[in-house]
């Protein structure tokens, strides 16, 4: 009987993860976002994009860390992958397990609903009347997910559709499966 994703996540978090005070990460990330807002003269679309890029680069490296620690096996379906992302992935890095839900009929789209988000603790968006409609503060997470999944042959699109920082009821990220990438053998590797 194999263990559930939740058990794996709990166990890895408890035994195989070195911890750091969340405030340190929150503060560092906050500085990044604040600086980007300044750099781009409050062009929040650009800020979102930069955060996403940053996340993507993290994601393609983070997957190694994830696989090494969690020792999970290949996911059979996109549904399995969603469970692993939430219960193992988010658990062992951010110690949260966003709720997976709102599956589309074709099972190619789901939502991650965040009850808590350590990145956004103590955060208020700039009150220029613009940020609240344009800035996705935690957009780095979309990039991380996209980058990490791409490294395991799963191409997705991820974007936030609501954020409590904007005054919404929930923080929700929508993840869409684009395609499963084919395993490609490197040239000359038999």
């Amino acid at each position, binding site marked *: 009987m194999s263990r559930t994703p*939740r058990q794996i996540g709990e166990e890895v978090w408890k035994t195989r993860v070195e*911890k750091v005070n969340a405030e340190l990460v929150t503060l560092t990330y906050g500085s990044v976002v604040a600086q980007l807002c300044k750099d781009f003269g409050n062009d929040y679309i650009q800020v979102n994009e930069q955060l996403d890029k940053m996340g993507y680069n993290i994601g393609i490296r983070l997957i190694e860390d994830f696989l090494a620690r969690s020792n999970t096996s290949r996911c059979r379906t996109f549904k399995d992958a969603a469970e692993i992302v939430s219960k193992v992935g988010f658990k062992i890095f951010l*110690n949260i397990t966003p709720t997976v839900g709102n599956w589309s009929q074709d099972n190619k789209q789901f939502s991650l609903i965040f009850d808590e988000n350590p990145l956004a603790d103590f955060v208020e968006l700039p009150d220029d009347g613009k940020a609240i409609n344009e800035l996705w503060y935690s957009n780095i997470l979309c990039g991380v997910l996209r980058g990490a999944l791409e490294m395991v042959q799963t191409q997705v699109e991820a974007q936030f559709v609501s954020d409590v920082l904007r005054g919404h009821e929930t923080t929700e990220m929508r993840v869409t499966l684009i395609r499963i990438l084919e395993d490609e053998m490197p040239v000359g590797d038999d």
Partner: protein
Amino acid sequence: MASSIPMTSSGLPSTPTTPYTPPNRPFGSNGTTNHQPLSEQNQPGVPGKVAPATTLPFQGGPSVPSPPASQQSLPAPGMYADPHAIYLNLSCLDFLLIELIPMSERVVEVIGERTTSSSNGMQSILSEKDARIGEEERRGAVFKHVEGLGYRVGQGLVERFSQDRPRFAEVLDVMKFICKDLWQLIFRKQIDNLKTNHRGVYVLTDNSFRLLMRMSTEAGGLDTVTRAQPYLWFPCGVLRGALANLGVQATVVAETTAIPVASFHVQTLRQD
């Protein structure tokens, strides 16, 4: 096992199952009186005479080895055993710090393009020399960007983590706080060596600086050192920001001559 925790449970870390004994505190927890007997050394040099640089040994306590990751992995030992603190995977911080450099490079590029493309279209006739200056300027801009991020983080850290401390009596106390507590907090170990000439210059050396620990390049040697340099800009900013919020204006530069040794040269500015 706590596997039945509902996923909406709060972000509090699970209660550690092993007792946690705080390590020896390098500083006495109350007051400044039991600091190391360094006050004598700290007499300002006689004017007109150059004081020799002195190494200030950290005799305050045995160096606290960070616990191996395999153990009940509690956060960094130290004085901030806040029961309400929430914890994340240390890798998150590492990833973030690593990614600051490429991010800043991208931002500088995007912003640079915006300004140059509007001002002139003479890029093609730039001489080689101009190109080199451009490269230096770009590096300077990236430095400023990364350092600025660090500055802000340094300020925030001090604000948050020195709030329960008594006021620092002198600059040396500030330096020791930074070398021991602040460094431990961000980079998981203390500064190995603090030197001063007693005239406002401090040199902080970390013999195995966390951000450089796992760095190598194919060419090795000088190549590695050169390419590692940008990763010292963030801690420079952290130092400057932390010092500023503790009332010490300073300039900070860093260098590494051999990975993973990093030394930070702090020049405090006299304020009258």
